[in-house]
């Protein structure tokens, strides 16, 4: 035994060890392939992967900003473009072009906060500040015009005045949107 140990060349031992470790590592990697994806699962997976432009309306409130975060996570794998929109609703009693500096400032601040969330994910983004009579109609129109694949809408957790779960804007978007709409509603406690 001692004779055998004396025979060992240190460099030879290092090469032998490298050889064995490399061989085992390669074979282990080879024998552990990714799992099989059935046809239905593949279809579902890839249909989400096909979402390349996501529109997220924001009103500058926490539930809307959560919608931005969700949109970023849904679009992260395929590097989707996130379009952030804030609509200033102008009552019909006023001209559409009337100066509304406070409302516009509020909108820009909401878009700034939403953009900072998108920046964290490193995704391309666009910000849209728009005036309209009805926010829902304007969002649906933009979705059609800009070839949007998905709208993600964060809505308030408390019901509105009419005790309806969906507000007027969400309702219009759901009715008139040309694309997939995802609504995120947190439980009341949240």
């Amino acid at each position, binding site marked *: 035994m001692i004779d*055998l140990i004396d*025979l*060992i*060349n240190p*460099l*030879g*031992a290092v*090469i*032998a060890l490298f*050889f*064995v470790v*490399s*061989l085992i590592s*390669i*074979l282990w*990697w*080879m*024998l552990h*392939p*990714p799992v*099989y*994806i*059935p*046809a239905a*699962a*593949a*279809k579902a*997976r*890839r*249909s989400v*992967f*096909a979402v390349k432009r996501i529109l997220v309306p924001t009103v500058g409130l926490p539930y809307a900003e959560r919608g931005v975060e969700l949109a970023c996570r849904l679009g992260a794998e395929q590097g989707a473009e996130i379009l952030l929109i804030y609509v200033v609703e102008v009552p019909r009693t006023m001209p559409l072009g009337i100066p509304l500096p406070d409302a516009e400032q509020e909108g820009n601040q909401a878009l700034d906060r939403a953009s900072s969330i998108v920046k964290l994910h490193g995704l391309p983004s666009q910000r849209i500040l728009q005036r309209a009579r009805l926010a829902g109609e304007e969002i649906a129109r933009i979705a059609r015009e800009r070839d949007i694949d998905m709208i993600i809408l964060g809505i308030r957790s408390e019901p509105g005045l009419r005790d309806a779960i969906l507000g007027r804007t969400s309702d219009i978007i759901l009715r008139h949107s040309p694309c997939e709409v995802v609504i995120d509603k947190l439980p009341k406690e949240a």
Partner: protein
Amino acid sequence: MASEVRAPSDALPNAPVELRRDVSIWGSFTWGYADVGADVYVALGLVMGAAHGATPLAFAAAGFVYILIGFAYTELASAYPVAGGGQYYTLRGLGDIWGFITGAALLLDYTIDIALFATASAGYINFFFPAIQSYGVDIGPFHGINLIWAAESLLLIVFLMILNIRGIRESSLFNSLIGALDMVLESTIIVLGFLFAWKPEMVVMQFKNEFPSAEQFFYAVSVAIISYVGLESISQAAQETRRPATIIPRTSVSLIFVVLLFAMAFPVLSLGILPWQTLAERESDPVAVLASAIPYVGFLAGHAAAVLGATIVLISANTGVMGASRLTYSMSECHLLSPWFNAVHPKYRTPVRSVVFFSGVAAVEAAFSFLSGPKAMDTMVNMYAFGATLAYFMSFIALIALRIKDPYTPRPYRMPFNIKIKGVYIPVLGIVGAFATLGMLGVVIWTHALGRIAGPGWILLWLGVYLWYRWRNKLPVLSSVRHDWEKEQIAILTSAEEFDLLEQYKLALTERNKKEAKHASK
């Protein structure tokens, strides 16, 4: 390799003949390993004879080209998981006639593979009968012909032919078992050799004092490339592999590195244990000679290596028989060869005509090689190197062409280092590989006297057969048959059950169509 040709069912008498998906992950690996893993058993002595002390360098140079080839084949086989290998990729990327030329080069390799490895198997058997090794007679103008070795080789070819006509489902298990046993034994020889017998100073001394001339070195590199030939087999089996687009990149990449490990370890070990002349003199059984030189276990390891060497190279020859039949199947499916070759034996359900025909060609090649005297294996290597380098060069060109012509097909594995130009990923390493294999082809033509005549001669002969077949069947002679590649790709991915890739492909096509429609409306 339990796969066999699936005959049309009784319910669907006109259904196309398909190949059954029976090859598992280990089966796919051993399919390639049986072919490539055996090569070092043959190449070691031949390369030593030419590269002397620089043998590891010759293996490393060929290994670099091999890695590029391996990566290219991995990308192509996972993107287009169908039988045919290089022939199919070239046909799809460059057109029918180029696909045929690549197919003909590969057919040359498969038939030489049968002849060369049957001869090598007989050589390892003769490790136990040293008298046969030195036997030689003169027949007319031919000198030193080893008739006994030649007869043994021909008998082995006949044996393989009968085996393949009968169809051997059990061969898959046998192949996997022998492949695993071979890896264990080769690893044992390498580990014990490096631990107890290897002397680094001997490697350095031989490297310094026994460096070959430039021409000898380049010749050695072109011979060393044969240690890596066989990766093609994994692609040939793509249509019979389960989830090929997922499995093939794994088995191919593993095979590349496993074979590279062995191919680099053996020459470094050999030069640290024995003078290069000892191995060069025993070109028929170099690994057995090397194993015999390991202290304490040499007497046993030498015999075991000879037995396993004889078996593994015989399996490699068997891969040649099967590879030729898969290739002719693909070529006739693509209207490059007559469907005559695809006739299935009524009882055994095997492609009997292609098995008999190409085994016969291999027997003729072996017989002619023995006429060249004691350097019979060297003669076959000449042609082997020509066929391999030509097919690999064409495959690189096809890889580049397909990246441009077919950017929508999903590639689960992509060759590293790409430049994006107008939405197309140009493979930098693919371009390097094309130049490297073209250079290697040049070296083969420059240094292999027989390769430069017999190789192109073979291609021209088959080209004649192709032109005649196309003309006779009123098919485009110099241009290509029309294909709906998108429809075909969807069928390929559906049949391979690679649904994720299928959906990816459909989405890419939809997006392209959308863009085109938008562009048209502007």
